[in-house]
């Protein structure tokens, strides 16, 4: 049995199946590693080692009787603290929800538990998933295992920090505008934004409901595909859940990309603000895809330049409505006030952090009488243009390739004082959220200018996760980075 911590989830699953190791031993190894690195990376908001070991014991007992519930039975997983977990505190990174204990499980959590996956705990995030660095967490930032002075990305930065440090083989994050792909890119991991509606949003604390989607974080493409398979599929408790049968993403994942047509986004080549080391690695990645048999074709997506403007009107508008529920009445923080309006207004001012207040204000403004058409209405029309750009491109190509993030991991504190600079971290990721497409970030090595990980993004048609995984898998295998010593942070 090789080192448990740096073995992929699927290889661990094979080792469990062969009886070389048990789930308790595997789970304990990740708990111990998490304990050892937590002081450096601050990934957890709430660890649940007892619950994990109890579930691991159950998995081993099942297997002893020749029974397993899924391909990942006995493989531990951790969750961004945005997923409700029955009996385990859930804060969404906000002081306003400090101490909140949900009375029910999110569908993602329930499906992973049913699949026999031990839960290691709940992970740090930007407050209500608003941010690109975890610095907006009400409980302090997480750190990037590649460089502890730098951010792990966000908002699912606790998830990527933990998996990058080998504190868990798998984790769940969520996306609204890139919050899985961007931190995965900054931490040298695989991050997936599934098609909108593929994974149930039930029990996922809402930020912007027309964009929110859960996504897996893993070290390898196949692990991410296996984890997505556990949770994907229709859920009657989410009215936006797509009634679509879920294919086996692992079946044919090693089929290669010979003859696949991949579009390179003209407008993103040499885009202002892209770090030269990122541009260089991603251009090399395109050449590698071509070497593997894909045909590269330049595609023009002219509306993408308006993606950030549209996103930062639509997402705050929906957030201002979703976050109206935090009023100090049914759960969460309550401040004193002698009438109900003062009580609510003070509770919200005390409980929410700066970025959340900024977005509530921005969203309320964009929806207010007199401004609605000029801001929210226009942004929704730009959303249509971006969707049409994608549709036109997919007439000629199977996938679209571009960088995931314009830069590698930035330093803690570097962008905190400049909200707009932080928003521009999402420039390459928001189009797929606005259009609902499936997208993945896969590592393509480290940037020569700073030695930090760079991510290649592959964007597929809606519900075409299989093509996306097949291409990412072929790329990952040929590059060989994740299995080499260079693919591991020195932490």
């Amino acid at each position, binding site marked *: 049995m090789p080192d448990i911590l740096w073995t992929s989830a699927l290889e661990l699953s094979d080792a469990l199946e062969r009886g070389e190791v048990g789930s308790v031993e595997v789970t304990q190894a990740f708990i111990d590693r998490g304990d050892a690195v937590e002081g450096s990376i601050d990934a957890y908001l709430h660890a649940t080692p007892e619950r994990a070991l109890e579930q691991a014991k159950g998995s081993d007992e099942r297997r002893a009787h020749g029974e397993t519930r899924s391909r990942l039975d006995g493989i531990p997983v951790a969750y961004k603290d945005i997923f409700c977990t029955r009996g385990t505190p859930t804060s969404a990174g906000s002081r306003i929800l400090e101490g909140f204990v949900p009375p029910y499980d999110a569908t993602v959590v329930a499906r992973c538990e049913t699949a026999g996956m031990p839960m290691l705990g709940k992970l740090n995030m930007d407050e209500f998933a608003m941010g690109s660095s975890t610095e907006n967490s009400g409980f302090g930032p997480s750190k990037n295992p590649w460089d502890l002075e730098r951010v792990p990305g966000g908002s699912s930065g606790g998830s990527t920090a933990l998996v990058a440090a080998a504190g868990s083989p798998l984790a769940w994050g969520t996306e609204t505008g890139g919050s899985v792909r961007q931190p995965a890119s900054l931490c040298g991991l695989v991050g997936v934004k599934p098609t909108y509606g593929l994974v149930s949003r039930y029990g996922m604390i809402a930020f912007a409901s027309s964009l929110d989607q859960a996504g897996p974080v893993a070290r390898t493409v196949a692990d991410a595909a296996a984890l997505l398979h556990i949770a994907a599929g229709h859920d009657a408790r989410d009215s*936006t859940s797509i009634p679509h049968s879920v294919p086996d993403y692992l079946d044919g994942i090693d089929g290669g990309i010979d003859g696949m047509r991949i579009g390179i986004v003209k407008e993103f080549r040499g885009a202002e603000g892209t770090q030269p080391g990122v541009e260089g690695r991603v251009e090399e990645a395109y050449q590698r895809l071509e070497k593997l048999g894909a045909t590269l074709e330049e595609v023009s997506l002219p509306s993408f330049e*308006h993606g950030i403007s549209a996103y930062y009107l639509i997402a705050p508008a929906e957030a201002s409505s979703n976050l109206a529920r935090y009023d100090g009445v049914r759960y*969460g923080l309550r401040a004193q006030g002698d009438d109900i309006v003062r009580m609510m207004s003070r509770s919200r001012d005390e409980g929410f952090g700066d970025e959340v207040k900024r977005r509530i204000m921005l969203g309320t403004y964009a929806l207010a009488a007199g401004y609605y058409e*000029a801001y929210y209405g226009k942004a*929704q029309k730009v959303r249509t243009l971006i969707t049409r750009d994608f549709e036109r491109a997919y007439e000629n190509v199977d996938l679209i390739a571009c960088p995931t993030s314009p830069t590698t991991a930035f330093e803690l504190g570097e962008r905190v004082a400049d*909200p707009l600079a932080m928003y521009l971290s999402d420039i390459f990721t928001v189009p797929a959220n606005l259009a609902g497409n499936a997208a993945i970030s896969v590592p393509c090595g480290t940037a020569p200018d700073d030695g930090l990980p760079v991510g290649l993004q592959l964007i597929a048609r809606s519900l075409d996760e299989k093509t996306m995984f097949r291409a990412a898998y072929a790329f990952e295998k040929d590059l060989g980075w994740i299995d080499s010593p260079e693919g591991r942070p020195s932490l």
Partner: protein
Amino acid sequence: MPIDRDAVDHIARLARLDLSEEERTRMQEELAQILAHAEKIQALDLEDVPPTSHSVPLRNVMRADEVVPSLAVEDALANAPEAHDGRFKVPRIIEDA
């Protein structure tokens, strides 16, 4: 579209945020900066473009109207800052006559 101090006060009231003076001043500057970035889409000709509210075509999702167990009262109140007699307790809403 300039955002003045009155607009900030109005929006904060609508959003039920009891912002401090310092927060209001900072918010005015930051919102102006972010909205200026969004001005680019104001210039687009979008006359004949329909809006997209959701990326997937949605229809009303209906289900059978069946009675199923719901959250128990004590579970629903377990996270309440204040509860009384099986209900959420809040400060006075209606003034004395």
